[in-house]
């Protein structure tokens, strides 16, 4: 098949370029790695004019998608009880309150984000410090236990009183938003790590603020809708039996989230088994042991599905981990290794990574375990990993400055002369196929 456009003299050379080159006919190339360092090259990035609007729309959609992560769950009951507790006013008044609440959330989130991105550089280190991680996981577990029915979630009495008395005004809603932004921020951090790195790379606080603000607006929009409806939530008929089951399901999702956060702190095998165990136990609890009276066939079907899903997820997780082949053999950084690579005429890949960074793990687990990538790396490359999990290694710090690394993950490609190919630099996860293309480009093929 071909594209039909009605041209008469159309030919195809099936062997094309390789044969052409072999016969010594004229060729040209657009090198990825400019031989001389021309640092002043400025790509028209997605930060000007109409492109900015599209970027922001994308970021907004990303914020909406963040609602799929259970990080937002803790905000839901608080939002409902805050707005539900207010005296019934006009719809317009409620809308303004909700809007102020949303803006308050967004302001806190974006201030935190920008500050973290611009001051820390490697802000993930702060957000993913073991103490913070354990704290977030603990909050998730506590909320999960509430969903399981061990205790009833209620706002602290002081907060409720404050909300019903002095902070009732418009400022109150704004203030609530400002405060609660702190709850969601650390949990969402790992999912927007790429964005943080990007903002740090742009180096503009104003642009960073706009981007994070848009993200938080997207994140908060469902909460805004919830606030609008929570006034009338009390009038809903009493929840049926099935709602209890859904609550337990949510509880398990929160527990899985907690396990996901704790995983980087554990040895790899333990992390995999922990997640697998959570999936299996969730299936067992929701599917087999659950004694909710079967109100209809739908619930029975759901239970069966939950049981099966738990088993399937656990099997896939543990199975694919066990069946995985060898990964790329990384070497720690040393100047002599770099010099040796240059002498051998080998290109170098330097991966700046940390255990706590989700995209780094993804890169390692998927791309750097892909058989073709592993083979090519072993044959033609010198692979260097710089581990930034712990701060304060002077050698790593020097490398960060030297290569202007703004965050993790960052993957650098050095050509065989030891020059970095700036076009090829990666700051996010990349699937194996395009990664192979970059490897070829760095090797100058």
């Amino acid at each position, binding site marked *: *098949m*071909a*594209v*039909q*456009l*009605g*041209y*008469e*003299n*159309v*030919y*195809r*050379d*099936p*062997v*094309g*370029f390789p*044969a*052409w*080159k072999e*016969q010594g*006919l*004229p*060729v*040209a*190339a*657009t*090198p*990825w790695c400019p031989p001389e360092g021309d640092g002043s090259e400025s790509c028209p990035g997605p930060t000007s004019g109409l492109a900015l609007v599209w970027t922001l729309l994308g970021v907004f959609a990303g914020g909406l998608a963040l609602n799929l992560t259970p990080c937002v769950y803790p905000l839901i009951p608080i939002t409902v009880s805050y707005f539900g507790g207010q005296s019934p006013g006009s719809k317009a008044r409620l809308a303004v309150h909700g809007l102020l609440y949303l803006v308050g959330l967004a302001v806190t989130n974006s201030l935190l984000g920008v500050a973290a991105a611009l001051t820390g550089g490697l802000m993930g280190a702060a957000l993913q410090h073991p103490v913070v991680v354990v704290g977030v996981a603990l909050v998730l577990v506590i909320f999960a236990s509430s969903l399981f029915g061990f205790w009833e979630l209620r706002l602290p009495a002081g907060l409720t009183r404050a909300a019903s008395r002095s902070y009732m005004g418009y400022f109150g809603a704004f203030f609530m938003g400002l405060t609660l932004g702190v709850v969601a921020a650390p949990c969402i951090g790992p999912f927007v790590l790429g964005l943080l790195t990007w903002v740090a790379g742009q180096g503009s606080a104003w642009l960073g603020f706009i981007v994070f603000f848009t993200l938080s607006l997207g994140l908060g929009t469902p909460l805004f809708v919830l606030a609008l409806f929570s006034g009338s939530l009390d009038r809903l008929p009493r929840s049926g039996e099935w709602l209890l089951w859904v609550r337990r399901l949510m509880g398990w999702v929160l527990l899985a989230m907690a396990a996901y956060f704790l995983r980087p702190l554990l040895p790899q095998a333990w992390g995999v088994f922990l997640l697998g165990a959570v999936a299996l136990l969730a299936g067992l609890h929701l*599917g*087999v042991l*659950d004694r909710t009276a079967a109100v209809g066939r739908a619930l*029975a079907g759901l*239970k*069966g599905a939950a*049981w*099966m*899903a738990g*088993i*399937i997820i656990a*099997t*896939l997780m543990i*199975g*694919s981990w066990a*069946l995985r082949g060898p990964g790329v053999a990384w070497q720690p950084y040393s100047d002599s290794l770099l010099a040796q690579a240059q002498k051998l005429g080998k290109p170098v890949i330097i991966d700046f990574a940390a255990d706590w960074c989700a995209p780094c793990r993804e890169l390692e687990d998927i791309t750097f375990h892909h058989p073709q990538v592993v083979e090519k790396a072993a044959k033609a490359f010198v692979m260097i990993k710089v581990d930034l999990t712990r701060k304060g290694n002077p050698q790593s710090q020097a490398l960060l400055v030297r290569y202007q690394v703004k965050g993790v993950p960052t993957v650098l490609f050095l050509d065989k002369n030891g020059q970095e190919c700036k076009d090829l630099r990666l700051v996010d996860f990349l699937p194996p196929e395009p990664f192979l*293309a*970059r490897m*070829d*480009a760095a090797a*100058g*093929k």
Partner: protein
Amino acid sequence: MPLKRSILLALAALLLAGGALWVAHRPAPPPRQATLEDVRREAEAGGYRLITTAELGQRYQQEPAGLLLVDTRQDWEYRAGHIKGAVSFPLEPSAWGRWRAKKPLAALLGPDKNRLVVFY
């Protein structure tokens, strides 16, 4: 849930997951090299002719002005090295890729329907 049903569902789930794992991890068959016959048949179906590298080279050196060379490989392949004077136009070998390429390709080739165009 009755015990018997639980066990049956568990077995079904294990089978499904095991199957999926097997599919994902079985050794991949070596990619089939297209034979000359395949290429010829494809050209006939697509309504274009084939040209050998030798002939193309001759024409290229005789009258480079009247010849439009289109490089349909991936962008990074083009960057790594291409025939001098060729234009890059990455084309996905799928129906969707061809449909999407129609308009920009027409713009690239220009209004002259008789001009000599060579893809590779």
